[in-house]
């Protein structure tokens, strides 16, 4: 370095630098994994490593809404007939789609990737369980489930989000907000309507290759919809382990109502490139729209003077779908 001319100092080769820094990082990650395995062997529980505020802020600053809209627009373009099979075959291979279950197996039938993404299933592909009161509303992977404790819901083990931030303030039947909950327990009490009942939750992650329609998980009546415009961060299990309150940051549609045991809600949370959420009986709902700003919410009540009940849904009935965009 001392003998080299000053000019050559600035001509450092990028490839060796990349190799050294990349190799160093990979080595560090391997060391961390090794340390975690050793701790697991000793029976010690490893606390989840959460993203810092600046990391979340940096991720949120990525224009995921705009990029998802662009991706949605691009995938509405009709593909030429000859291109359909290779494009969808690549998607099927990448995400492990089971086309045997699709209502239409012929790949040429789907005009673009958006249509392919929201493909329907054969009627006999998903028999609805008649014995149990609550069924899975969609295909996917169970990230977490159980009783809600201290108004904190687990998105994955050890990583929680606030129930109140997720659902927003509770509304009375007359569309008036309840007085603000003084404590988290009082918010939970606003939801639990019957003595001796508890609040439960279940989180289902839909991978890109899954069937992306969702159905009614039980017999219930939907009385209210709340749309939260938000970020469209990835919601894969790795991200859910890394970002606290991930589901409170993301665009989502909360449907609330009642079932035979009291309060019932289903929330569809959007993700990167999948910010377009459709609810079949709600034509006014438009998600990931540029006219909505993050941090607000839009309410709609299905209870009117003529319909005091709301929208009745039967177990297994088509409720909505996720779309690219």
């Amino acid at each position, binding site marked *: 370095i001392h003998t080299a001319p000053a000019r050559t100092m600035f001509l450092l080769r990028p490839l060796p630098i990349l190799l050294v820094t990349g190799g160093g990082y990979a080595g560090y990650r391997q060391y961390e994994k090794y340390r975690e395995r050793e701790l697991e062997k000793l029976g010690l529980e490893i606390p989840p490593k959460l993203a810092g505020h600046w990391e979340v802020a940096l991720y949120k600053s990525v224009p995921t809404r705009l990029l998802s809209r662009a991706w949605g627009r691009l995938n509405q373009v009709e593909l030429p007939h000859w291109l359909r099979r290779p494009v969808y075959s690549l998607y099927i291979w990448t995400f492990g789609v089971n086309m045997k279950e699709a209502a239409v197996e012929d790949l040429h039938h789907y005009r673009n990737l958006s249509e392919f993404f929201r493909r329907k299933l054969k009627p006999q592909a998903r028999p609805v369980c008649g014995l149990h*009161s609550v069924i899975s509303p969609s295909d996917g992977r169970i990230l977490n489930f159980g009783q809600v404790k201290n108004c904190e819901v687990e998105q994955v083990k050890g990583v929680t989000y606030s*129930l109140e931030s997720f659902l927003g303030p509770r509304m009375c039947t007359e569309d008036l907000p309840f007085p603000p909950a003084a404590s988290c327990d009082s918010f939970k009490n606003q939801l639990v309507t019957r003595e001796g009942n508890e609040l439960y939750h*279940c989180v*289902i992650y839909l991978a890109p290759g899954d069937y992306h329609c969702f159905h009614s998980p039980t017999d219930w009546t939907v009385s209210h919809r709340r749309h939260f415009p938000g970020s469209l961060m990835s919601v894969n299990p790795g991200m859910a382990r890394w970002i606290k309150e991930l589901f409170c940051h993301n665009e989502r549609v909360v449907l609330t109502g009642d079932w035979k*045991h*009291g309060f019932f809600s289903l929330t569809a949370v959007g993700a990167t490139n999948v910010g377009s959420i459709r609810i079949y009986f709600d034509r006014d709902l438009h998600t990931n729209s540029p006219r909505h700003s993050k941090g607000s919410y839009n309410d709609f009540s299905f209870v009117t003077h003529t319909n005091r009940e709301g929208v009745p849904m039967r177990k297994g009935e088509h409720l909505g779908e996720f779309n690219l965009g």
Partner: protein
Amino acid sequence: STIVLIFEAPKDFNFQLKTGQKIRFGEALGSL
């Protein structure tokens, strides 16, 4: 994308699930 269910039920409500398991639409989540 993700679906989150939050609901009220009696104390004897039981989930018939395991964390991380794959599930399909129509399969049982839980019952009383």
